[in-house]
């Protein structure tokens, strides 16, 4: 059994920066995976990302990136790209954490062999809980890259019998607490 992390990185309150968590939750709603695969909305991790990376056979991260490309372009980076490009290539708002975490994991001998960063070029990082049109249009392409990587790693996945609702609570305009705590005895006194 291979231990695989599929991790969405980004701040869901800052527009297209939420694309990583969004893709992670889409994948979780649509597919089931081999035992050993974990799909996690990582938010904007700092060095605690080391813990998430360590001891995995493969890591697939999804994040917004800041490359020279049209918004919505999906760009792939391999482990060597991430570790090498540190000072030169502008790639990712959270890159200091990602690069530092990967370099630390490497130093401690716990880094995964296979790392793929599925980057989606953002249009806007303005505060707000919605993705821009070009980034929304890129969601399926990003998911395709994640699945292709799973194929390459020899990890199985299959569509859910009944696809669940996508748990992207932050995009809801109404209330979201009911999701966490089903008790509707909470009253409103007028």
């Amino acid at each position, binding site marked *: 059994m291979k231990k695989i992390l599929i991790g969405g990185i980004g701040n869901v309150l800052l527009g297209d920066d939420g694309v990583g968590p969004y893709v992670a939750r889409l994948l979780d709603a649509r597919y089931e995976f081999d035992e050993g695969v974990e799909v996690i909305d990582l938010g904007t991790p700092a060095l605690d990302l080391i813990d998430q990376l360590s001891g995995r056979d493969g890591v697939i991260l999804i994040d917004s990136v800041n490359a020279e490309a049209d918004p919505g372009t999906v760009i792939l980076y391999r482990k060597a790209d991430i570790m090498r490009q*540190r000072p030169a290539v502008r790639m990712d708002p959270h890159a200091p954490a990602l690069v530092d975490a990967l370099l630390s994991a490497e130093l401690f001998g716990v880094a995964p062999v296979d790392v793929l960063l599925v980057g989606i070029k953002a249009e806007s990082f303005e*505060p707000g809980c919605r993705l821009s049109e070009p980034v929304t249009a890129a969601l399926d392409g990003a998911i395709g890259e994640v699945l292709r990587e799973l194929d390459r790693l020899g990890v199985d996945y299959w569509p859910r019998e009944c696809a669940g609702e996508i748990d992207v609570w932050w995009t809801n305009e109404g209330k979201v607490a009911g999701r966490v705590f089903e008790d509707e005895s909470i009253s409103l006194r007028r």
Partner: protein
Amino acid sequence: MANRITIDPITRIEGHLRIDVEVDNNAVSNAWASCTMWRGIEKILRGRDPRDAWLFTQRFCGVCTTVHAMASVRAVEDALQLEVPLNAQYIRNLILIAHALHDHIVHFYQLSALDWVDIMQIPKADPAATSRLAESLSPWTRNSRNEFKAAQDRVNAVAASGQLGIFMNGYWGHPAMRLSPEVNLLAFSHYVQALEYQRKALQVVGILGSKTPHIQNLTVGGVANAIDLDSQSALNMDRLEMIRVLLEDVVRFINEVYLVDVCAVAAMYPEWFKIGSGVRNYLAVPDLPLDTQGSAYDLPGGMIMNGNIAGVHPFKTASDKDFRQGVSEDVAHAYYQGGKPLHPWMGETEPEFTGWNAEQKYSWVKAPRFNGQPMQVGPLAQVLVGYAQGHPLTVKHATLAIGKIEAVGGIHVTPDMLHSTLGRHAARAIRASMLAELAQKHLQLLTDNIAKGDLSVCNSPVFPSHEVEGVGTHEAPRGTLSHWIVIEDAKIKNYQAVVPSTWNASPRDASGAHGPYEASLLHTPLARPDEPLEVLRTVHSFDPCMACACHTFDPSGRQIAKVKVL
């Protein structure tokens, strides 16, 4: 003629603090702390259901998710005068303690130790001598020659490869680095071990919060943990036992490694007890409530003005009137519209970017003030207000740590010396050892309360239609955090977060008074102005995390430190 040095950004973790200092005769003669970008995340909360606010606020920052969740539910509970069941208080306290222990360990080892430890001296160390030294300082079982040899081999491999990797940005060989090769190796070996123990602390957060990052178990009025000692899917004896075992390891690491290393480093850099004091006004809020109303706490709060420890003013409760009325935010030197300082409940966040200008506006961080004065927050503030009040737990751990520093360094340490860069590190280690003791206490309190048959975890909130205001406070790893909420008709009308790094990184106010980072840098000697290691030492001693101070990231900011000498 003074030289201007700009360091941008200075935090090692996400965030974009910029420091400008003027250097005259190899000492800092003036300083500016600024944050380089702004995003108005608080505005997203307006009009939303107050019960949901914590889910959003814990996304402010990827490092301190838990603390913003906690302050948020407390703000709503304060507005509604809602009591919190005992089990919920204890579970929340355990989460807060475990998160803080993780955070303090990571801060010392991963984020600031390399300001003091020269990695490139490690190949010269003798692992056997290192082991003898370490065993003379601590009963820690992982101080063997083999442990140190393995750590040294890692560094040798990195040095031989020519790819410095994670160590690419250090000021190796700097004249202000003064530890012996053996002490450098000792600290580095613990740097590696620290990762294991901070992870155990996070596992405690995960068990109680169902998930980390982003705990899921909070709710306004309590927690959503089901407690059932006979159920596999609830908080049961197995899980409490898992927490106990994890905490035992973390507590041992704190007492036998972290505290010892901080004391050893302090003993070897005693001049840093005289550098970096700055603002000697301190602010801390009481935390770790012991009853349902929040009238008794395990961590004391209060304030100290002008370093007058004897004149400490205690805050008895988290909703202390003096605290609620004392806070305001000044925007004279921050990129916002507005004139006079505003209380957070009236707070406005209308940006007005005018470019960095040393005489006018130069930061996206507002300047919080307490009764008009800048305040330093953080573990040092907490330890000093506790020590000043004779709080037994604080006095016990502070005395122990001071004794260790004196024994290793052969120096006399007075409480006054804690107003310093090393004082902030020492206080964080003291606070960690206090929290380590409290972790075990609160686990016992929770277990005993459940054993009595109390399984309640939540009181339901009831919202009035008229306007209500609340403040939720938490003494977070970086200091006093407060979330200020105005609710009308069960909807959020205004929301302001005054975060620890806003207090410490604040720019000047209308009167020209420096914020704590700025003031702490004045008169700092610099051995090599183009390698301002000493500036980093002091700024890092505050544990800066700017992500939530200015709610920011910089999509292009990828350099760890850009040093520009003008």
